[in-house]
């Protein structure tokens, strides 16, 4: 019943929305003021696409009833990930995990390797895992690395992943394991719910729209998301992901290294010919080996065979080659140590610095130096992935938030995911604005990174529905740019009488109001019984943060700029005064909007503006903007109530 009402409202919203935005493009853009007219119609088009994606999501709302019974013999590891959270908090979660009814083993994955954490775990009989020594001086990959490390030190069929603050219900496994009776299911995600949040939730911590209709809608398309905690995963699926990823990344890196090596050696050969260097035959031997290796790879020979043979041939060619120019060798060896194949510390992805590679290829190598550099290039990326702690990284490390990337890869390998809508763990949300902003920034950056690195629209193995479900979430993070336009347009009209549309007359309202009404009605029905207003507010009110996330993530992916990654503190930060600095852009926006209203009314009164309806529409628009943005000031003024068990400072 509700499902059909939702579908009807989706159809009505999208029909009227398409009519409105179509009318806007064809008949009502004020091209004379294109500099505001075009951004506005583009922003409205953005919002309409967002509405389409939302409509598609809720079209297949899947409400799963009682879960199937758990298989009695399933072996399970419970992983509690921690980095720097207080020992008492982690221990409380671990003790609750021990009380989970279904047979399992509990492990604390301590990335901080703290002695007191280890002692507490041992005292209570909880397993304790830190990084193995393989990880020393190698990219650590944050939480994904922590989980990948544990994956190879345990052997349960399934694993429940919990953040340090997520206290599990004893029934959490009994209620979720049953879904794995379907051998294609790789993931069961349950909601994240926070206990330290007040009724009004000024920081917007609860995400009832996401852990509800949106996840249920994605579930309907077999695209329920993995959210990093409160989820059960099938080990076999993750391991398969690890092997597939290993093969893909390693093959690509070996190819890149051989390409670079062939340029280095070609130059060295030219040089040696010119100087009639006695090392020429050795260089030619290496050049031949590089060429052969590239050919064999291209024809589909197994990579391990090709690289092994290659290393042997290079050894052979270099044997007996003694250079008299010791000083030159010294310099060469230094350059080899700084080979341009490196790892991004945050992301751990292989970065081949093109400019540095050019310099390397242009360098005046001694013959031995050239051979060593080719050997070094390949060794850096050889099948053993000497640069990585583990050859396999089952959990994706492509993005700072590993969850979405991992889940997308699972789906593209044909695995299924399940969203089980029942609160089975209780966690702690950030309690101050600064921490909350850091957390949202991290999520947004991670999402944009995945979108840029592994665009879901072109991923092989995903169904059309799955592609759009991933894309929908990414698309929603672009809202900051639209918000900027939605703030600027009424200001420009009220202050200067500049019209982005032909007229804000009745014709405008006729087209706009049905769209807006049905859109709100759809939200009301989809979100019946849950609070969706906070989420709506924050999608506009955090516009500076969304923009920053897009810009930094794009700079990171495209130009390798660091993100300035932060781990979200689970404990409250020291209290200060009202955090004006954090909400400066919003404060400026509010001041400008209020001022614009005053000027608009004044202009109407003095006769500088003649359109009452235009002024009315724009003042109403500003009022809506202000109502939405008011939440950020409530959040900034918010002081979480002190309770004994949460006190940290």
């Amino acid at each position, binding site marked *: 019943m509700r499902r059909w009402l939702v579908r009807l409202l989706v159809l009505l919203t999208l029909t009227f929305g398409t009519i409105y935005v179509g009318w806007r493009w064809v008949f009502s853009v004020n091209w004379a003021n294109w500099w505001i007219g075009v951004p506005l119609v583009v922003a409205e088009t953005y919002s309409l696409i967002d509405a389409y994606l939302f409509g598609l999501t809720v079209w297949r709302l899947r409400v799963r009833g009682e879960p199937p019974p758990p298989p009695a013999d399933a072996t399970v590891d419970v992983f509690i990930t921690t980095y720097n959270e207080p020992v008492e908090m982690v221990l409380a979660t671990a003790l609750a995990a021990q009380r989970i009814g279904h047979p399992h083993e509990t492990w604390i994955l301590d990335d901080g390797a703290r002695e007191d954490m280890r002692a507490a775990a041992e005292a209570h009989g909880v397993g304790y895992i830190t990084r193995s020594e393989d990880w020393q001086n190698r990219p650590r990959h944050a939480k994904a690395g922590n989980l990948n490390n544990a994956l190879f030190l345990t*052997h*349960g069929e399934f694993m429940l992943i919990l953040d340090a603050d997520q206290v599990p219900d004893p029934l959490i496994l009994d209620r979720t394991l049953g879904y794995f009776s379907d051998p294609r299911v790789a993931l069961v995600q349950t909601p994240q719910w926070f206990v330290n949040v007040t009724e009004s939730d000024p920081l917007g911590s609860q995400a009832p729209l996401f852990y509800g209709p949106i996840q249920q809608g994605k579930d309907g398309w077999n695209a329920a998301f993995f959210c990093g905690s409160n989820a059960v995963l099938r080990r076999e699926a993750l391991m398969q992901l690890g092997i597939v990823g290993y093969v893909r990344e*390693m093959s690509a890196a070996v190819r890149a290294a051989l390409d670079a090596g062939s340029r280095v050696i070609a130059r060295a050969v030219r040089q040696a010919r010119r100087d009639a260097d006695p090392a020429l035959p050795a260089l030619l031997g290496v050049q031949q080996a590089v060429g052969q290796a590239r050919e064999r790879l291209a024809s*589909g020979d197994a990579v391990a065979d090709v690289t092994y043979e290659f290393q042997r041939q290079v050894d052979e060619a270099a044997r007996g080659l003694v250079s008299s120019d010791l000083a030159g060798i010294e310099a060469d060896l230094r350059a080899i140590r700084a080979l341009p194949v490196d790892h991004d510390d945050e992301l751990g992805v292989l970065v081949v610095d093109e400019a540095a590679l050019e310099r390397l290829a242009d360098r005046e190598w001694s013959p031995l130096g050239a051979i060593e550099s080719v050997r070094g290039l390949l060794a850096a990326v050889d099948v053993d992935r000497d640069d990585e702690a583990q050859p396999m990284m089952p959990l994706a490390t492509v993005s700072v938030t590993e969850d979405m990337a991992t889940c997308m890869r699972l789906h593209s390998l044909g695995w299924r995911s399940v969203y089980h809508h029942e609160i089975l763990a209780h966690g702690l949300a950030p309690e101050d604005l600064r921490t909350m902003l850091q957390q949202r920034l991290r999520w947004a950056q991670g999402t944009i990174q995945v979108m840029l690195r592994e665009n879901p629209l072109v991923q092989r193995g995903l169904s059309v529905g799955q592609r759009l479900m991933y894309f929908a979430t990414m698309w929603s993070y672009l809202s900051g740019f639209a918000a900027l336009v939605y703030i600027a347009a009424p200001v420009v009209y009220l202050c200067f009488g500049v019209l982005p549309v032909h007229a804000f007359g009745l014709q405008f309202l006729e087209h706009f109001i049905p769209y807006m009404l049905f859109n709100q009605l759809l939200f009301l029905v989809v979100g019946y019984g849950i609070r969706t207003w906070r989420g709506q507010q924050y999608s506009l009110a955090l516009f500076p943060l969304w923009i920053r996330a897009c810009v930094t993530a794009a700079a990171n992916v495209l130009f390798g700029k660091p993100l300035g990654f932060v781990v979200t503190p689970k404990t409250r930060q020291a209290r200060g005064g009202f955090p004006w600095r954090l909400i400066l852009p919003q404060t400026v926006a509010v001041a400008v909007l209020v001022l614009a209203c005053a000027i608009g009314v004044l202009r109407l009164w003095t006769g500088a503006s003649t359109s009452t309806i235009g002024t009315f529409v724009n003042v109403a628009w500003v009022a809506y903007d202000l109502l939405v943005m008011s939440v950020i000031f409530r959040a900034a003024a918010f002081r979480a109530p002190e309770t004994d068990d949460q006190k940290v400072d």
Partner: protein
Amino acid sequence: MDMETRDLADGVGLLALGGRLNMVSAPGVKAAIDELIGGGRPRVVVDLSSVSFMDSSGLGALVAGLKRARQAQGDLRISGANEQVLTVLRLTNLDRVLRPRDTVEEAGRDW
């Protein structure tokens, strides 16, 4: 999981496996490969002809073994995989890295 090791040639060790190579037996297999390499046999042939079933964790043990072997300037090869094992190798594309040989003799050749 049954495991048996012996020398094939100078510096070449053979690890013959039997039974199920899965998440339970994988750590032991990895340790056995490490032991061969640590004992001065950087080139290792893993004979899978008696392995009835292998999952991705089993493949993981082979990849980890390959890493250890390469770090010791050696290599790792596999032989005698049955249809099920070949299927998981193909499914994960691992056959593009680690070419399965038909017999131990073939795996030990040209090293």
